[in-house]
């Protein structure tokens, strides 16, 4: 059994065409950075590290931080 078994159909399966890395790289870097930063603000900011002074971000997302499994307290 091979992967082709996943895409069985009346027609022979068409090989999925990969997206060239050159096209993917700028997206991965810039969008990836934005997403990682967003996760950082929910999960880490004003805990282990702090970009903004105070604890208001930490307190605001506090319950989510615990329930999403990030270290807190």
């Amino acid at each position: 059994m091979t992967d082709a078994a996943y895409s069985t159909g009346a027609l022979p399966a068409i090989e999925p065409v990969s997206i060239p890395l050159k096209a993917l790289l700028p997206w991965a870097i810039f969008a990836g950075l934005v997403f990682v930063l967003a996760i950082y603000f929910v999960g880490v900011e004003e805990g282990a590290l702090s970009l903004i002074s105070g604890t208001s971000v930490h307190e605001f997302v506090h319950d989510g931080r615990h329930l999403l499994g990030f270290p807190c307290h």
Partner: protein
Amino acid sequence: MIAQLLARGLIAGLVAGLLAFGIARVFGEPQVNLAIAFEEASEAAAPHEHAHDHDHVAGAQETEGQSAAPAGHSHGEEALVSRDTQAGLGLFVGVMVYATAVGGLFALAFAFCYGRVGALSARPLAALLALGAFIAFCVVPAIKYPPNPPAVGVGETIAWRTELHFILLFFTLVLIGLAAWLRGRLAASLGGWNAGIVAVAALVVAIGIVTALLPAVNEVPDDFSATLLWRFRMTAMGIQLGLWSVIGLVFGALAAPVVGERRRAAARAVFG
């Protein structure tokens, strides 16, 4: 095509976030509130001795005046953000931002893997990636550094614990990638199914070694309710299970037409 995939990843993340928020709000908040009540009761009983009896291996030394929370971190009357806001809008925003962001990252991972992981079509690939993400973001952390409610965890060790958390996440993601690569290498000689078994077995052993090498953290107060801890952790796992199931299934359905699989399905309907 990448922009389209990205937009669908964000949509899948938003939908998943709504479910995750619902689980967190209904099943998680009662546990959080009980944990905060415990924290406040034990702080009132012994303001400077609370959380002194933890036993983590390395890291924080016992400092004077240690409390369960870092400076300025409080839940009571004096809290900067009210409990209602933390449990309502704050929880909603936190979970939605997290879910949308991981949805976006998921789309990027999908864009990289599509056409590179065997001949998997969009939907099974998305489901498989979501399973991998669930293992990396929930199962493996649950084995070594499980989610903790308020009152569990020493403020002074937060940096160390955060470091360990992300080191484990990093290694798990790398090892899952290596396992996928190994399966691809072995598929020709062993066949797809057996190559998958070997790759998963290798992954389990490798993750076992990594988790064994990383230091243990145990900061659960001796008198903390085992039932409450269990319920909190089960809820946290439920949130992740809901989150990744929805991301994988919704994204797969949304991404299939983007990568040109609708035409194939339509042709199949006509000729099949």
